[in-house]
């Protein structure tokens, strides 16, 4: 059944909400096939499609998501937090499939922030275990779907077993090109800048560069993301109604469009993603000028 719905206004913005097309029958979506002009070349069997209402040329190249609300989701259903994280992992897989299908080249997700270490140990161990299991389970899927796995953040503090899964995953998928899934583990925007500053300081110490030669491009090149030659995020989505960036990315967010939604992460699906992309495509990006 095809239905049209007008949702209530965002609590955090007075922008009118776009029309949302919701249907249980996927065949009723109208797709427009387009040439994929991204970084990689998809297999001919799975061309990139653009959903109805969106424009191919305005799709974000890099989308970042702060997957907030897993514990709240579990609490609202009187479940343990691990149920929330598992549901969140399922939502992530769904969003990965959609990004891959719609030609979004890079998807960065924030799995674990530096501040999360202060949570109870049992919860931290649970999260690390879940990450390790998911990486193990999904590596074959990523191989099949031509998805590359990358990890950013200070991995020195995470358990050895998870570090091994990460290295194995990165090596196995390094030639994949349809979608680059970047997982931020123990990442902090400030930490990223400090480590860039430290490596520049070492260059100054060794006499390779003078302090007056330091410029924004140099800091750019030292940041974790840039070493992978990834573009800065075009769109940052944060779920669960929190309207802040919480030190997830910092330098890279200078001109990123921010999108906040009340939906909890495990409930974030195709409709919500379409809505976010629709709002993104209506924004006038001036890059500060």
């Amino acid at each position: 059944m095809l239905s049209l719905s007008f949702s209530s206004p965002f609590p955090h913005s007075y922008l009118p909400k776009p029309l949302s097309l919701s249907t249980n029958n996927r065949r009723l979506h109208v797709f427009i096939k387009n040439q994929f002009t991204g970084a990689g070349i998809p297999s001919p069997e799975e061309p990139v499609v653009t959903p109805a209402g969106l424009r191919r040329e305005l799709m974000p190249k890099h989308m970042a998501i702060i997957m907030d609300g897993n514990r709240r989701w579990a609490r609202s259903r009187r479940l343990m937090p691990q149920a929330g994280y598992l549901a969140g992992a399922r939502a992530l897989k769904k969003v990965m499939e959609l990004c891959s299908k719609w030609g979004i080249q890079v998807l960065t997700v924030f799995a674990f922030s530096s501040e999360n270490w202060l949570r109870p140990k049992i919860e931290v161990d649970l999260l690390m275990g879940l990450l390790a299991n998911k990486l193990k389970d999904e590596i074959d899927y990523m191989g099949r779907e031509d998805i590359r796995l990358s990890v950013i953040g200070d991995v020195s503090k995470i358990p050895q077993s998870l570090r091994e899964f990460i290295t194995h995953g990165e090596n196995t998928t390094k030639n994949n090109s349809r979608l680059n899934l970047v997982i931020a583990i123990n990442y902090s925007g400030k930490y990223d800048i400090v480590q860039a500053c430290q490596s520049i300081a070492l260059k100054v110490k060794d006499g390779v560069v003078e302090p007056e030669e330091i410029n924004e491009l140099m800091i750019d090149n030292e940041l974790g993301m840039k070493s992978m030659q990834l573009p800065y995020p075009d769109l940052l989505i944060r779920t669960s109604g929190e309207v802040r960036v919480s030190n997830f990315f910092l330098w890279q967010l200078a001109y990123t469009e921010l999108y906040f939604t009340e939906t909890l992460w495990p409930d974030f699906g195709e409709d919500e993603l379409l809505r976010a992309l629709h709002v993104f495509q209506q924004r006038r990006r001036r890059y500060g000028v």
Partner: protein
Amino acid sequence: MNLHCSISSDFNHVQVHHILSFDQVQHENQTSFKLIMDAKKITQIYEGLGTLARKCIFSILSVSIIPNHIAFIMDGNRRYSKQHNLIQGAGHRIGFTSLMSMLKYCYELGIKYVTIYAFSIENFKRSPEEVQSLMDLIQEKIEGLIKEESIVNQYGVRVYFIGNLKLLSKPVRLAAERAMEATAKNSRAVLSICIAYTSTDEILNAVVESCEERWDDKSEMNLIGVEDIERHMYMAVTPDPDVIIRTSGETRLSNFLLWQSGNCVLYSPAVLWPEIGFRHLVQAVLEFQKHFGYLRKQKRI
């Protein structure tokens, strides 16, 4: 004598119309002076009532926590000019009036720190005429700030100019330095005006200064940490903002306070900057209060 009075929704602007009947016109000359004096008194009374109404609303808001630092991204001046078919630059002048009103409300509410994004380094890429007219306006308004009757002296506001001031022309830079010097003794509130500022430039400057600080003892170069960078930030003179308000409905930071906005509530009303009013400030404070509990828990965690 018939008086028609109307008050704007922010309780700040009062219009008083004096409607005369035919008989009264004959005695107009004799009574006109007295009528003007009465109209002025009535305007003052209504303005006083407006201030009182605002104070009542502020007392209600103050029951819960009030933000210590609010930052404004004043977006939408040019769109306002276009929408109302005004000459170029008029939108910015009207935007300045809105800014003065917002500053007044913030200081009345008891918000100690206010930061505004006046001019970005990227804005230098606009047309030379537009940049020059903006610089002229900025210089004119900075000189107005130093005057006795200006808002900074009324509320005891210390003014900082935050940014790469070397990029400004000499007259503007000198005016900024004079304003900072003239208000250095004020201590009740702080106004940070970000001019020739981008956050990436601020971080770059902090990195360079951190390296230069250790120039004499190079063995400590790799010990540079978060505290060193924060110490050298232009915005080290104020605490981190609690709320960033960006008008015109755009939800992005545009290279503003990237380092400082990690745990800050972002509020983006669709209204253009010259149209911003009292109710938007109230709404922003309510948003801050709504998220404060969770934010405080996160900070503790």
